[in-house]
């Protein structure tokens, strides 16, 4: 049975500046299975966001081929910034994408609002919320749109460490509960290992796939517990070496 949800075949991308052409992505190919949680790590500027933009269909000017075994309208995207609309209340922000996609998921939105203790804030505007709360509203808005594929562009980067752990845990739980396939790009190797089933390591620009790690930490499926397992450090060491972090410093 074909379980492949998304397939990238020799995807390349280059930018043309005044006098030269810069290759950003060079012949990247990989398959993603339904329900996978994939983390893509790479150094800053290696083209991770560009890759996500290509997958989300925002950027159509690339070489290669992408096969979507689902409706492209069922892609959701979470960004670094919570990207809430300042003139909409929390409730309206949470419902915005379902309105655009013309689906009714109000009951689920209300359940998630309750689950994350946001009930008392539903009629206030985003400026009254903390960074973590905003990112949770953004998460509710994203999950409520019933995505098949969720793209995460370093969605925890602007949060403090503790909030970061909590929100990443929420993303993990909700993606598993709703059987959503996730592609997350991140700088943070720990985050990648604690959340993902598979970590794809990209090289420096032009980015190529340097290594792919299937993460198996004694069958543990809890992001926080994974961090306390000795295998976590082994993966950390391997990925750090791939990214050449020590030499960069």
């Amino acid at each position, binding site marked *: 049975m074909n379980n492949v949800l998304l397939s990238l075949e020799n995807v390349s991308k280059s930018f043309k500046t005044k006098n030269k052409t810069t290759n950003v992505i060079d012949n990247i190919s990989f398959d993603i299975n339904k329900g996978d949680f994939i983390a893509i790590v790479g150094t800053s500027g290696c083209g991770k966001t560009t890759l996500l933009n290509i997958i*989300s*269909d*925002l950027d159509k000017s690339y070489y290669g081929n992408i096969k979507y075994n689902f409706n492209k*309208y069922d*892609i*959701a*995207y979470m*960004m670094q*910034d919570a*990207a809430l*609309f*300042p*003139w*909409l209340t929390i409730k309206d922000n949470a419902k*915005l*994408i379902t309105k*655009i*996609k013309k689906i009714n998921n109000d009951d689920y939105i209300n359940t998630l609002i309750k689950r994350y203790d946001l009930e008392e804030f539903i009629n206030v*505007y985003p*400026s009254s919320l903390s960074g973590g709360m905003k990112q949770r509203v953004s998460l509710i808005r994203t999950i409520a*749109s019933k995505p098949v594929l969720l793209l995460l562009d370093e969605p925890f980067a602007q949060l403090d460490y503790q909030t970061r752990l909590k929100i990443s845990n929420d993303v993990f739980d909700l993606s598993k509960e709703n059987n959503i396939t996730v592609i997350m790009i991140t700088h943070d190797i720990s985050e990648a290992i604690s959340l993902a089933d598979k970590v794809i390591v990209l090289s420096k620009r032009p980015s190529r796939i340097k290594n792919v790690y299937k993460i198996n930490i004694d069958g543990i499926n809890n992001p926080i517990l994974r961090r306390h397992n000795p295998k976590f450090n082994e993966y950390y060491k391997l990925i750090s070496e791939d990214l050449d972090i020590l030499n960069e410093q």
Partner: protein
Amino acid sequence: MNNKIFVNLFRVLIILVFIFLWEYLSYKNIINSFIFSSPSKIIKCISTLYNSNNLFNHIFITITETVVAFSLSIIIALFIGILFYECNFIYRVLEPFLTLFNSMPKVALGPLIIIIFGAKETSIIIMALSITLILNIMQIYNSFSQTDKYLDKLLTIYHASRYEKLKYLVIPSALVTIVNSLKINISMTLIGVIMGEFLVSKAGIGYLIVYGSQVFNLTLVLTGIFILILISFIMYVIITIIENKIKRSYD
């Protein structure tokens, strides 16, 4: 808080000193009271206008013309602003013509407007529109152009239609800037209406000023100017209240 009270106190003090000096200099004939009139004469003139049931009629006519011209200007500018935002090609083609028209002294159009639209209120409204419309279009278009690209990207990912982008993002995000610019535009509209009333009207504050100058009743002229300042101030306050209400929901 204390600082704010002091600022307001000083403002009131400046006005009181100005009125007192004006009255004193006029009373002592240090300044020509025929030309410069005096606050007491202006109050007397307002009272005469009120007793002859003319005061509110003139004010009502000027305010009505201003509100009609202002509303029309906003509605038309909003439509054209959306058109420019949606079809940037049209904006790029028309932009030099808009700048050219905007830099032209609009009073020069007065005779043409009267011939085309007749010596009636329509001409006054068109005159006010000629002053504010281009300005409004440019301000609305510019605020649309500054829409948050990040939020726009988000709506694009979810395949929001152009109408949905306008409804949920472009117009609401431009609202504060638009309302802010209305504070200037309301005064500009009033200037346009008064210019129009100078040329064609039979009533209104502009008519009072012209009539006063024709019969050398300079107290009537200054009364008209005083009422205009008052109307302009009240309209400014109303728009500031609306602006603050909108801002409060965002902050």
